[in-house]
Structure formats: C-alpha cells, structure tokens
C-alpha cells in the first residue's frame, strides 16, 4: 500500500527535542573557563597556555585512542575531554613539566573516566583524580610555584602560595608581604584580582566569578553547590580562627566550587544533596588546610564528597502531590 512509497517511522512520544545537547553544555563550560585561562597567561606567561594545550591535546587523544582501541564509538566531539584537560591544566602550577601534564590528563581520562564507561559512567571528577595522582607522584613538581609576573614584590617567599605560606607557619602578615599588600583591604584586592602565585587558573577570583556568572546566567550550573561550599569554607575557616575572606579567596575554592563541585556527573542531582555536597566539600577543604598535610584541600574535599554522591542522591525532594502517608491507628 502507500507504506511502500512513504516509509513511515514509528517512535515514542515526545516527537520533539531541544537543540541543546552535551556538546553545547561543554562548550559553555569551556567559554566560562577562558577568562581564568587568560588570567593564567597574563599572570604566569605564555607557558600557561602551553601547559593547557598539552593537557587538552593529551586528554582528547587519550579518549579518542582508548575508545578506538575498545572499538567503541568515539565521542570526542562532545568536548568533555577538552573540559577535563582544561580543568586539569588550570589546577597545575605553571612550571609543571609538559610530560607531567600530559600523563596527568591521559591518566584522568583513561583511569577515572573511560574505564568506567566514559562520560556519565565515572563517579569521581577525572580532573581532580588526575591532579591528586600527580600530587602523589611528583610532589616536588606539583608544589613548585612561580610568582606572578606582575607581583609588586619578588622575593623568596613569593614562590609559596598564600596558603602555602600559612601552612609553613607564616601569618597573614607574611602573605601580605608576599603579595606586596600593605593592609588587609589591599591583600583582598590582590587576591581578588589574582596577582599572586598559585595554579594557572585558580588565582583570580574576579575572572573565575566572571566565568561562573556566565554559567549561572545560561543556566548551565546550579548555584546551590557553589554557594554552600563557599559559605561552608567561610564559616569553618572563621571557626578555625582564620581570616574567612582570605580563606575563600585563597587557593582553589572558587575554581572548585563553580567548576568542579558543579560537574554534573560526579555531584548529586537532588537539591538537598547539592547543599550537602557543597557543605561537605567546604568543611573537608578547611579541615585539610588546617590540620592536614597539604596547604590546599579542595581537590580532596571534592573527591571525598564525590564518593558520597550515591548516598546524597537518595535524598529525594517532595514529589508533586505528595501526601505524607497517614499513620494507621492500631
């Protein structure tokens, strides 16, 4: 009958989809990371760009080759590997050897993501796993900080990050000296602008907030987790007797809160879970900063919460029309 000429298709409703897909989401994240990357190049020189490029290329190549070897469909065009490579580079020191950046992102992609089945199958943030492994493997390279090219003072202490100075027993005053700030407001300004030593992309709060604002406006990320994480860091560091504003501006809190604690795959989907995730990550970060071995705890804070996500996802919000089951009188 007319079937033969027409060849109709049967499918389930709805017969309509939005044009918004994974590639576009990842594209948004990449755009949002560009200011921070640009900041890294400005503060630490062109080598920052080189490290990032190597990391991205290695991540994409690792994903492509691994999936080819497994004879699976390659999905590099969804840009998720680019995001992983970029995020990893942004949390490395600018002086990282290029081979280390390459190993780190290949490791992140293959071990933390592809062996679990690729994007969506992993339970821990690949970039953070990559960084944690690099930190374990080559702590010397991973803690060799370069001063900002535009730092007001250049002396020996500037090679430590602000948090590093505190960890080595220094005080806020020492930090001020290291960035050439005369008082707390000046220190905050320097920290906010990002004119101090640190990982490539983590130093400038301003540029990170710019990117984050873009993601919030385009509804790519949910504000719950970052707000909870930053607030938890603020309160906890205040309780520990630290300068809370400084604690939030220093280190990777902002980068972690807006770009890693909001990673879709490895964070909770439930609203309460998101709050809990942020608070937990913030608390763990401060705990590690204060008591642990490392000057910075964002990586581990978020990774530890990643592991808890399956439980956080069990806190399901109220359904439409949900009525509390009435107790049956015995």
């Amino acid at each position, binding site marked *: 009958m007319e079937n033969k000429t027409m060849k109709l298709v049967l499918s389930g409703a709805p017969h309509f989809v939005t044009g918004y897909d994974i590639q576009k989401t990842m594209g948004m994240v990449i755009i949002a990371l560009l200011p921070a990357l640009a900041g890294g190049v400005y503060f630490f020189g062109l080598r920052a760009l080189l490290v990032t490029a190597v990391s991205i290329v290695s991540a994409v190549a690792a994903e492509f080759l691994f999936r080819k070897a497994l004879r699976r469909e390659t999905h590099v065009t969804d840009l998720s590997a680019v995001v992983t490579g970029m995020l990893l580079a942004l949390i490395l020191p600018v002086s990282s050897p290029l081979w280390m950046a390459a*190993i780190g992102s290949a490791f992140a992609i293959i*071990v933390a993501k592809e062996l679990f089945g690729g994007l969506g199958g992993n339970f821990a943030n690949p970039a953070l796993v990559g960084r944690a*492994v690099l930190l*374990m*493997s*080559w*702590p010397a*390279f991973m803690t060799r900080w370069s001063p900002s090219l535009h730092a007001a003072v250049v002396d020996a202490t500037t090679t430590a990050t602000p948090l590093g100075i505190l960890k080595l027993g220094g005080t806020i005053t020492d930090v001020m000296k290291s960035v050439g700030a005369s008082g707390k407001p000046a220190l905050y300004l320097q920290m906010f602008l990002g004119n101090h030593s640190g990982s490539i992309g983590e130093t400038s709060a301003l540029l990170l907030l710019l990117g984050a604002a873009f993601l919030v406006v385009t509804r790519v990320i949910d504000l719950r987790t970052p707000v909870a994480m930053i607030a938890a860091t603020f309160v906890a560091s205040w309780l520990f007797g630290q300068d809370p504003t400084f604690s939030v501006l220093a280190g990777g809190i902002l980068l972690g809160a807006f770009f890693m604690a909001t990673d879709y795959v490895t964070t909770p989907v439930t609203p309460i879970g998101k709050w809990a995730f942020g608070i937990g990550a913030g608390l763990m970060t401060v705990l590690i900063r204060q008591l642990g071995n490392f000057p910075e705890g964002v990586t581990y804070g978020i990774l530890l919460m990643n592991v808890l996500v399956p439980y956080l996802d069990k806190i399901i919000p109220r359904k439409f029309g949900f009525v509390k089951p009435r107790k049956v009188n015995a």
Partner: protein
Amino acid sequence: MKRLFGVFVNGLIIENPLFIIMIGLCSSMAVTTTVANGIGMGVALTFVLVMSELIISLFRNLIPESIRMPIFLIVIAAFTTIMDLEMQAYFPVLSKSMGVFIPLVVVNCIVMGRVEAFSSKQPVADSVVDGLGMGIGYTWVLIALAVVRELLGNGTLLGFQIMPASFSPMIFFILPPGGFLVFSLWMAASNNLRRKLLAGKKPEPTQDSCCTLPENGSAEKA
C-alpha cells in the same frame, strides 16, 4: 604423575588463587611495593600452605568434624609462627617491611580454603602438590604486581636502578591507591586473556580442571 601435574597447574593458573578464585587478596597488594617483598611473602605463604596441607592431609581421618575448624587453625597458626620466627631470625629486614602481614597469613583465605576444600579430603601427595601449585600461583602474581609497582614507582627492580636517571618515579604506584590500580589492571588483563582463550577453544580449560573431579567425588562419598 599426569594427575599430579594437573593438580599443580590447577593452582598455578586455572584456579589461580588471586586472579580466578580471588581469595587472599589482602597481602597481595600490601607487600608488593618491592619485588623482594613480593617474593618473600610468596615463599612464606607457600611454606605455610604446603606444610599445613601436608599435615592436615596426613591426619585427615583423625579430625573430629565438630572441632575441625579450631584444629585447622592450630595447624596453620603453628606453621605461620614458625615461618614468622625464622623470618625474624634470618631475614630481619624482610620481616620488618612486611610487618603484620606475616602473622596474617594465618587467616589468609588461600590457606584456610585449600585446607578445607582440598587437603581435608585428598591424599597426601595431591595435597602437597596442590599447596605448591597454589603457593607458586600466588607468588607469581605477587611478583607480577611488584614488578610494575617497583619499576614505575621507584625506578628499580629488586633494588637495582633500572630506569634511566632522568626518569622521575611515579610514586603513586607504591602508595595504596596505586596498589589497587595495578591489581585491578592486572586482573582485567588476566580476565581478558582468559576470555579470549575460552572463546578460542570452547570451555577446554575448565574441562581440564575437571580431570581431578572423579576421585574427588569418590573421596567425598567415602
């Protein structure tokens, strides 16, 4: 003879305690930071395993069913202690670096499992060969793990510098997470290989392991 060889190969590969049966995992990751430790642990376990299987097999008809477990444990614990003392006396460095894992051989599932499953029902010769097969099967896996970890994590093998001086060892591999990772990947490799073999020539390997079955059945009836 052929039968004994079958029993030996069974433990070595076909029912390899670590990769296939997956018991006695604890020590396999803890002590494999260096090849020397791996060999030491393997030899230690093989000793305890062979001796325990020998003794249990010898006395298998003199063990009352209801206190079977405590008696097995006594035998195993005795040999573990002997091995521990000897190690302390003659290999103090090795003994120290393996720490609590030497006494823990006593609860290693391989020993307990083989004693229960095999030597309490099998003749002496078979038991000893089974112990040897299982022990060596355990040891080679330890060495395989340790080679990767020591080489990548420290740049050495058996303490000798292997990697060029420009190589920065990836310390991750000798830390606990690295242990888990290396084991996981080795196991994946072994699974993959085994699956390919199985796919290649039907279920022959399992058939092989069945060649010990008939007597086993009769032993049980007895």
